């Protein structure tokens, strides 16, 4: 009877679940534009590993040292939850890095291939136009979004094109 009273609370699986939750919620850091965003993927995976370690410690304590620690059922449930959340962290880590190499893409010092593509109004726009060359030299594109009271064309007549930023993005989905 005295043994039951003195059995300790098993905090490890709770701590593990907390770490697993922080690991998955750290992905919100990408949307908050925090300065350390490059560290987030590693932080997230590191926290997930620590979470699984805590969950394992909690389960071992509950089942192997049941005379010392409580919480067989709770450690199993919390461990399962932690494993599930860490699985999601792992999937996010693997899928977001599943990108083809950019080794064949134009590198610094190389010329970029030209193109002519339709803009949002269906008008054909060429790279030369964007660079301020050729017949449409007056219709240049400024890098910086103009103030709200100025249209992009009004801005570009005052500022000659210095460079063009080409952003390849994956679409809105």
């Amino acid at each position, binding site marked *: 009877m005295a043994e039951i009273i003195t059995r300790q609370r098993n905090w490890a699986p709770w701590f593990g679940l907390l770490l697993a939750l922080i690991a998955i919620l750290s992905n919100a850091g990408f949307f908050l534009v925090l300065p350390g965003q490059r560290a987030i993927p590693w932080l997230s995976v590191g926290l997930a590993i620590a979470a699984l370690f805590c969950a394992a410690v909690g389960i071992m304590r509950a089942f192997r040292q049941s005379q010392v620690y409580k919480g067989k059922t709770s450690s199993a449930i919390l461990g399962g939850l932690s494993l599930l959340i860490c699985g999601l962290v792992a999937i996010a880590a693997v899928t*977001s890095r599943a*990108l083809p190499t950019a080794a064949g*893409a*134009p590198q610094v010092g190389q010329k970029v291939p030209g193109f002519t593509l339709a803009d*949002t109004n269906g008008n054909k726009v060429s790279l030369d136009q964007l*660079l301020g060359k050729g017949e449409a030299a007056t219709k240049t594109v400024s890098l910086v979004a*103009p103030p709200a009271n100025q249209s992009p064309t009004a801005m570009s007549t005052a500022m000659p094109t210095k460079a063009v930023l080409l*952003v390849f993005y*994956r*679409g809105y989905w």
Partner: protein
Amino acid sequence: MDTPEVSRNLATKAGYTFPILSDPTAETISRYNLLHKGGGPEGSNIARPAEFLVDTSGTVRWTNFTEDVRIRAKADEMLAAARGLK
């Protein structure tokens, strides 16, 4: 690959004033060696994320190729690269 209509809706909603070009056949994306086969919705082909700062001679002056789709070049990084051009 988004159509001009999809991009127009986005530009209107978000207030973008820069040109958004559409590459429905992925011809330009392929020429830049940036095709991500099956990377888009329902296995469609899209571009891998990439940013190039190109000077008026058409020469690349700065690039950013992320290895993780969650990490993208931030506006201030791109502006700093543009300001650094002589």
